[in-house]
């Protein structure tokens, strides 16, 4: 975190530049959406741009690019748990790999005949 006035004055210019970059990235996201890409590609592109925007906000606006070790430690732990949380849907998808579409639901809906 900067505390001397000169460093803050330099940062002010950076804040406006990052703001402009975020505006441009948002415009690009919407423009790419108008191209009507295939859904997997569209999801990939949109999430990559969102991640770039998110890292700009976190590193510059939230000053994460120069924080203390305790905060990095807390955030690394959060990221690990977040990855586990995002992996949960993958397990449900993994359960149905190799199963014909609709078969998994059908087996739950009807009890097996004797």
């Amino acid at each position, binding site marked *: 975190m900067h505390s001397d006035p000169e460093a803050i004055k330099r940062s002010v210019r950076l804040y406006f530049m990052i703001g402009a970059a975020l505006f441009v990235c*948002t415009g690009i996201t919407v423009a790419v959406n108008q191209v009507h890409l295939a859904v997997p590609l569209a999801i990939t592109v949109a999430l990559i741009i969102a991640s770039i925007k998110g890292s700009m*906000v976190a590193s510059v606006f939230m000053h994460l690019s120069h924080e*203390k070790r305790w905060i990095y430690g807390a955030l690394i732990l*959060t990221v690990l748990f977040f990855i586990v949380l*995002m992996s949960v849907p993958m397990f449900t998808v993994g359960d149905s790999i190799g199963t014909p579409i609709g078969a998994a639901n059908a087996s739950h809906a009807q009890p097996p005949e004797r």
Partner: protein
Amino acid sequence: MNIPYTVEERPDSGLANGKLGIWLFLASEVMLFGALFSTYIILRTGAPEWPHGELNIWLGMINTFILIASSVTMVMAWAELKLHNWARHRMFLIVTFVLAGVFLVNKYFEYSSHFAKGEGPWHSTFLAIYFTLTGLHGLHIVGGMVVMAYLIGPGASLFKRNPDQFVNRIEYTGLYWHFVDLVWIFLFPVLYLL
């Protein structure tokens, strides 16, 4: 009795208590929104079809621009305070508050158009997760506005008594506000575009 380490840094962590506190709070918020994003993935991958074009992309884009602009004004409010420009600090903080209000007004119009068509959260799985995610995000906007209103109004007097503590409060409010912006940066493409 004074609360220790509101301004000075703790010898063990090198941080003021509020700084570590707000980051731990934000970590819990990551898990809260993470759980809902995870739910969204499960609902979407499990759905036989997923609606496209139900939301107004342009209104969503305008709201994204508004929140980005509010993040810039929020960080400027903190920077001006560090540069001892009290008037400019207040101007930027008030602009941030107004931008947050404009965001909510846009959201009100968006919600109204859905409800007018009978498209509430009960209408479809997509709208259920849309209202849940954006509703929770909207509540966070309201929470941020309450804190900003306090810092613009009665809380501003702290600057005269303890300027360093007031600067810290503005910084922590800014961290929260940037997080709210960060969440919207992901909500916008996930709900409006994909």
